């Protein structure tokens, strides 16, 4: 099953490679990974999309938690969440195709963000279904280039996602 995991990490150099290295080193599947700053400048947020049976996903979450630079891990798929992805698609658009391209763009509430006499570049944001649908419709026109951000996701407010908190700070070793 697909899992979308939100990971709060220290905003330090090397953190991305620790996370990426965990996935490659343990043979975990990683479908997409997106990282960006958060409201707190010392913290970055990652959204990870992965697949695996329950045992593997449990391991992934525990292993992420074990990384010292990881502050918090939430498996969004355990609750209600919204996920979005942005795609930039450059298509061939000449003659009659130009109108068709604009029509599709309109239907999906996408935007043309660049245009030449022979091409359009379209920006679209949405969930996976929407993105797949627009790509399928634009394909007959000829897709020259396509780039996706990977999904980002956030828990819905009303129903709290199951939080896999790091072990509480109960019995910290007193340092000598």
């Amino acid at each position, binding site marked *: 099953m697909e899992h979308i995991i939100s990971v709060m*990490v220290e905003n330090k150099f090397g953190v991305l490679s620790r996370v990426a290295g965990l996935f490659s080193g343990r043979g975990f599947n990683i479908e997409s990974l997106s990282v960006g700053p958060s409201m707190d400048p010392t913290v970055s947020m990652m959204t990870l999309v992965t697949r695996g049976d329950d045992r593997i996903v449990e391991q992934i979450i525990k292993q992420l*938690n*074990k990384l010292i630079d990881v502050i918090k891990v939430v498996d969004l798929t355990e609750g209600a969440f919204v996920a979005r992805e942005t795609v930039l698609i450059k298509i061939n658009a000449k003659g009659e195709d130009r109108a068709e391209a604009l029509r599709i763009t309109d239907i999906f509430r996408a935007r043309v963000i660049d245009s030449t006499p022979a091409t359009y570049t379209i920006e679209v944001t949405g969930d996976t279904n929407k993105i797949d649908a627009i790509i399928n419709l634009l394909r007959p026109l000829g897709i020259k280039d396509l780039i996706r951000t990977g999904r980002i996701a956030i828990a819905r407010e009303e129903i709290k996602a199951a939080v896999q908190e790091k*072990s*509480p700070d*109960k019995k910290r070793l007193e340092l000598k």
Partner: protein
Amino acid sequence: MKMNGAQIFVESLKKEGVKVIFGLPGGVVLKIFDVLYDYKDPALVLTRHEQGAMHMAEGYAKATGKPGVVLVTSGPGMTNTVTGLADAYMDSVPLVVFTGQVSTNLIGNDAFQEADNVGISRPCTKYNYLVKDVNDLAQTIKEAFYIATTGRPGPVLVDIPKDVSMNQTEFNYPEKVYIRGYNPTYEGHKWQIKQAADAILKARRPIIYVGGGTVFSNAFEELREFADLTQIPVDMTLMALGSFPATHPLSLGMLGMHGSYASNMTIHHSDLIVAMGSRFDDRVTGKVSEFAPHAKIIHIDIDPTSIQKIMDVHIPIVGDVKCVLRELNQHLRTSVNGQRKEELKPWWNQIGEWQRKHPLTYTQEKNQKIKPQYMIDRLYQLTKDQNPIVATDVGQHQMWAAQHFKLDHPRTWLTSGGLGTMGFGFPAALGAQRAFPGRLVLGIVGDGSFQMNLQELATAMDHHLPVKIAIVNNGYHGMVRQWQDLFYNSRYSASCLGNCPDYVKLADAYGAIGLRATKPEEVDVVIKESLKIDKPVLIDFQVDPMENCYPMIPAGGANNEMILENPPELQNKEKEKTGAKKAGNGEKEGVLTA
């Protein structure tokens, strides 16, 4: 007070109570070595290879429970530590390893002796740091020791660029550290512990399965009390040996691939496994789908990733073994009745039957070659009163040592388990001897393995480390030959060691003492002689080259399907060629002393 980075480094180590640094210098760490030149404390042990320094630090850490400290240069100095890092990471050994790095302005330029130390060590350290600013140095060292020694221990690497060791700043050593993403759990969940206590009292065929985590947690007394209270038999992993007395009546010895028949049969037929500080390694479980098919599992471990990784666990308890056992014992003290022995009698009867059916034995005929089991047994019998520390390499000799050298005390067993690193034993013995100058430290090493780090004989001499190294000289990569016997039609591809040094002369060349035994009756003589010598001693035990180590569970086999002796085709072969080919030094007569 203003200090340069090198001084801050040394003063920080003093604050951490570091007594010994194992290391080897080079260009970018010269400033640090220069400062160390003025210090007696911490003392420096110059090794002859960085891998040697790593295993010495591991031996030191395993024997003392304190972190081992290593200091090496950039580039090749660091890359030579990688095996030791991976070894320490697998076996959860607390180490803090300092590597030199080229100056910050040169990093990334392929400068002379530059390597991406942090990148290379990332997958084989618990954590690592590149210190880019001298102002961060003290804080980083504090964190490094904290991370290495708390939670599930492990190696931490700190990479120090040359300019950082030269630059000056005010020295303030932090009192405390707080790392928000790192909060190991020590106390177990109370409700889960209660559940565990109930399950333990209900079980009729229980087994305790002890792993190396029990050693790091120093849970010896707690384990002892737990076993005594509950009368449950104790199986130990290779890493756990010594954590529970091998001669205690509740001990079944080691389990797993070369574990005793009784220990493997017991866990296989158990109805409850109490796992502590163990991780269901494949050398223990064999075929996972057939591992202990009737058992419920209680799993106590400080590392949540170890739980539910391999096996379905019924009662998981994340926590430190010592803390959890303390709590568990408290429950049990009030709830166990005097009936425990009676309740478990049928189970113990069954176990007794297994023990009698296939005990760990060997036969040593007078006129035959020395059996490796015999020489290890004699070494054990002749030294046990001194409570020796025993270091091993990797191979058959390691397994025979685990089977026949009965350790009754914790932190007396230094072996490379997870990584299985040949060449570990000798330097590990030296590290332990450096920590405990007055104690008897033995190495039981393979002839193949010993040759991987024998350069440390020079370190042993320099620092007067009078270890007694028993080379189980079978002229083979014996464990490889055994697998070839069993699974590759006895085609000995690259397992015969061919030309080997004369170990007595080798010892002599370094100024150490070399002894040799070629016949069974010489075994006691050389052991006793070695114990009288206050110098490093190498003992060349020329043993039967064809001996195989049993019981053995073939990789991926189930634990109740042990091979107990050579299969018939090998037995016939043995008979055909009496006096099988012997590699290395021929049959030297008598006992030679250098």
